[in-house]
């Protein structure tokens, strides 16, 4: 199989870190805060590398859109087994406005440029929880999509995808080229071990600008403010049912 797979990896604030809202309410403090690869993107890379190990596909390309530090995330993907990386350099105001629509335009352009047969993404990112990029990318390319995948079976020209849906598990068959988004149970990602990190330093990372791909990054969305959720009020305990009804009446609830 001579297929190429494109995997998107996003650099996000580490899930264990307590985030803090910036005093000017424009966003969350990111400077110096621990970042790591989005956990669902780790699962996506693992799936692509496994396909390569089974010799079902030829090459795994890891892509990340963001500032210089996104290259660290690509290096981790390379250490996990990706063959080469593409860093789409987006910084400053453009990076603040970077959302699923912009990223999916970039991925679609790259998929065409690199002659890719399969795109694997994480189902969503843990910082914005959008769950839109995979679906939008498929729509822009007019490719079928297998989202929330918990199992992917590679067949000659198509994929059998088992999806996690509200009602249980749904299995669909989609023709390639296609977009798949990884859900939690798809696999357990391997560690990026030190010898592989050292080898990854020799693998290639190309840097491109969105304008090189002909992509327009303008956004129709504007963030007005970012705030912390309101403080939880202490509860009140009452002794009897009558007290409860009285309290509810007094506060105008009933």
């Amino acid at each position, binding site marked *: 199989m001579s297929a190429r797979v494109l995997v998107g990896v996003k650099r996000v604030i580490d899930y264990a870190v307590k985030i803090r809202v910036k005093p000017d309410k424009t966003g969350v403090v990111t400077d110096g805060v621990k970042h790591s690869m989005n956990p669902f993107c780790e699962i996506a890379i693992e799936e692509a590398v496994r396909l390569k190990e089974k010799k079902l596909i030829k090459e795994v390309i890891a892509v990340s859109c963001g500032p210089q530090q996104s290259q660290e995330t690509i290096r981790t993907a390379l250490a996990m087994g990706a063959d080469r990386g593409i860093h789409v350099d987006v910084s400053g105001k453009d990076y603040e406005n970077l959302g699923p629509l912009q990223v999916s335009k970039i991925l679609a352009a790259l998929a065409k440029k690199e002659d890719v047969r399969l795109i694997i993404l994480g189902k969503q990112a843990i910082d914005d929880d959008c769950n839109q990029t995979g679906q939008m990318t498929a729509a822009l390319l007019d490719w079928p999509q297998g989202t929330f995948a918990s199992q992917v079976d590679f067949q000659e020209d198509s994929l059998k995808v088992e999806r996690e849906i509200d009602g249980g598990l749904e299995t669909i068959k989609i023709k390639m080229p296609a977009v798949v988004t990884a859900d939690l149970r798809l696999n357990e*990602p391997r560690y990026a071990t030190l010898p592989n990190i050292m080898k990854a330093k020799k693998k290639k990372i190309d840097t491109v600008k969105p304008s090189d791909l002909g992509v327009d990054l303008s956004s129709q969305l504007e963030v007005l403010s970012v705030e912390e959720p309101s403080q939880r009020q202490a509860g009140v305990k009452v002794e009897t049912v009558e007290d409860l009804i009285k309290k509810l009446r007094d506060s105008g609830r009933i």
Partner: protein
Amino acid sequence: EVLPTTKKASVCQCLRLVKGLRKKCLPPILHVSRLNSSTSSSPVPRITTHYTVYPRDKDPRWEGISMERFADEADVIIVGAGPAGLSAAIHLKQLASEQGKELRVCVVEKASQIGAHTLSGACLEPKSLQELFPDWKERGAPLHTPVTEDKFGILTEKYRIPVPLLPGLPMRNHGNYIVRLGHLVRWLGEQAEQLGVELYPGYAASEVLFHEDGSVKGIATNDVGIAKDGSPKEVFERGMELHAKITIFSEGCHGHLAKQLYKKFNLREKCEPQTYAIGLKELWIVDEKKWKPGKIEHTVGWPLDRHSYGGSFVYHLNEGEPLVAIGFVVGLDYQNPYLSPFREFQRWKHHPAIAPTLEGGHRIAYGARALNEGGFQSIPRLTFPGGLLIGCSPGFMNVPKIKGTHTAIKSGMLAAETIFQKITDENFHSETAGVHLPEYEENLQNSWIWKELYAVRNIRPSCHTALGVYGGMIYTGIFYWIFRGKEPWTLKHKGLDAHQLKPAKDCTPIEYPKPDGKISFDLLSSVALSGTNHEHDQPAHLTLMDDSVPVNKNLSIYDGPEQRFCPAGVYEFVPVETGDGQKLQINAQNCVHCKTCDIKDPSQNINWVVPEGGGGPAYNGM
């Protein structure tokens, strides 16, 4: 005596074999009956599963698993990317580039990013940074806050007694900078990378490797993919071996590999045992009206009694927002097992001299770390075949100044100079496979580090009299200020911190106030602010040599001091599932790598080993 000799011999042999098997290979069953359990006959729940206590070569679950490791060679390997380790790496590369030589320098660091495990006050004396980078300002080193005001006071329960800081006293900070050490370390890391140092954050050195002649060959990084019960997972992979001509160990205060090296090379035979303190720190965004950038305040006294060494700091940073670093230090030679350093810290914040600064502000970070208090008397031998120790690991902290960063940086530079000279000398032939560099120790003893530590050597031990901390202050005033440490005697420390605890029955429990949620807080929400986390499915890295000791000894004699001295809530005594009694629950995921438990456990039963690399706190500029 009734049995014929041959039968008795074979029975004895059988018993020996069985005992030997049980000791070496504990199968993964939950209960191990102890024949000689002193307090109860109920089974001891299995707590420790780490392979350093239960070796894998005797464990049937590991049969057939390949234990081969990938190996690589460098000229110098450095364990720990803190101020000392990074300064050594940087200086090695500076020397190499000056003299047109090639050197491969690799640094391994357990934190996921450089600076994430760094925690310090900190008030930096810039002299060694100036030596390392005379152009540090142009390079953008994050020293933004020169000290403008320096105050010292003794707190009583309600009042504050100011103490004048006369010129010449070690506590004066004129010319120094308040820094966020984590950011300075991050900056040092960037400088190191630019110079070509190979930095590997997220990879912990978990094992020292030895040549056949006993000299140090290098280190191996941690294995990954071991399940919580000690068995191999599908993603199991061995760590990597890094070999070098010489390995620098800069793990910081009470490093776990250093602990092994002290034993192996008997490095502590001529020095006193190290004595420590725990430092807890918080970062606060305060009301702008209360913010005085460049102001430093130290206190001693309340809430500690005169016999418990400790004190506090309040540093006003000047980096754009009204940020204040506050912290509390408690000497780990305290005697009352009911003392909780965390809760002393929380209640100190309510003092009328401290609380006003914090009112109207909010807390944004929390963390804790052990620090050295032993000074001159506790410096071990620093070199051994194949390696040497730098920084807070052997311990060059100037205790009355509460500064150790400037000496750590200098020790790293001295190590680099000594190593560079030796390994680039074509005529040098090492007797041992790993290079032995006693010249490093000589150079250090001829440097200002030695003179500085010698001069203040008697201040900390002078706190051990009946006058406690105030005796120390009087001693400092007389002997240090007047005689500058030239007195001919050297006072001794009290011995191991772990042995200073009195039994719980001889002590009174301390009534701590409940946290108010505005100025003082509970332990778990504080730990959450440290950003600490570990892969949960791995053996607990807080290993117990004997699983029965926490309940049988620590709890019964000392009322379980580990549940109080751990600043992260790792140790909890919980009721057993069936029947009476308690068991120790280890919440390894909370650990902030402060090392206090390894230091203060009265039974010295806890052995902190490094968890999978990348785990631990996520400090940002602490």
